[in-house]
């Protein structure tokens, strides 16, 4: 084996630890599940080739930077401009995120379910309308008959609680 390359076991370990998060990040940047998968593969090829240059402590940041560069390369290659980012990232292919770790995904969904259940009904309604029904904050404000600022405040409060729930994983 080439000594300048990362050990396959180390690459596998990195994949197990970071693939799900990197895929979610790449999905957010590319808004295309297939391209996200492609960029993820390229990222770990780079990790195998030159991951040894990164320090253990900063490997996650290094992987994010590589992934971001791969995503931008892919965007240019596919001739996709920033307008692609107007699509909603989570409505693409939720199943693809489960590929990396099905059990983790189940646990994650359960946590989010519990988090949603603890939200006040007004916050839960805004979350539902924004994410599930894909309505804009203006549409939600109009529908609920409340000021736009109130809708945004409720959404931010809900997100903070849900992110705390996820952060505890």
């Amino acid at each position, binding site marked *: 084996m080439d000594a300048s390359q990362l050990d396959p076991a180390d690459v596998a370990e990195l994949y197990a630890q970071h693939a799900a998060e990197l895929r979610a990040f790449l999905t957010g940047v590319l808004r295309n599940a297939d391209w996200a998968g492609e960029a993820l593969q390229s990222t770990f090829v780079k990790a195998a080739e030159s991951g040894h240059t990164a320090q253990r402590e900063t490997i996650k940041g290094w992987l994010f930077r590589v992934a971001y560069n791969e995503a931008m390369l892919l965007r240019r290659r596919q001739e996709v401009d920033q307008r692609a980012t107007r699509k909603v*990232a989570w409505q693409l292919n939720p199943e693809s*995120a489960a590929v990396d770790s099905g059990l983790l995904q189940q646990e994650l969904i359960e946590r989010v379910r519990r988090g949603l259940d603890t939200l006040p009904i007004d916050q839960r309604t805004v979350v539902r309308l924004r994410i599930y029904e894909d309505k804009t904050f203006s549409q939600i404000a109009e529908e609920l008959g409340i000021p736009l600022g109130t809708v945004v405040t409720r959404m931010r409060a809900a997100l903070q609680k*849900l992110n705390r729930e996820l952060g505890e994983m």
Partner: protein
Amino acid sequence: MTAPRISDADLEWLAFRYAAGELQGTELNSFEELLGTDERACAAVAQAVTLGQAVLQVERDVVVVQPMKRGSARRAFAVAACCVASVAFAFVCLTFVNVSHKQSSETAKQVAALWIQGADEDQSLEATTTVNHEQVDLEEEDAVPAWLLAAVTEQQKTEDGEEMMQD
């Protein structure tokens, strides 16, 4: 001079808006530049996407479960309706059978009573008839009918007249 560090809450909010496709223009450019250098921003985007997918999944489950609940309720209602209908049908059948049975019993009793009564009447009639017949017979046997007496008397007169003529 370095850019001021964005708070976690603001970064989460920016990442959510980015993943939701709400950032535009310079705000979008600035955030994408930040993604190239800031691990926290990348992690915030990953978390926003993951959270969005999870919420979507949970809400889909809720929507999927609700029709199932409605379906179950409908099924339960249908089963209950069938049970009630079956019970009602059974009740009607039993009632009908009971009434029929009562009616038939009553009818049978009436028929039996009528039969017995009829038999009694028949017997009394028969007896009466027999008695009358017997009485008539007896009377007929005892008393000579008037027409016979008249006929005999007439015949005797005729015979007497013929004998007188011969004499």
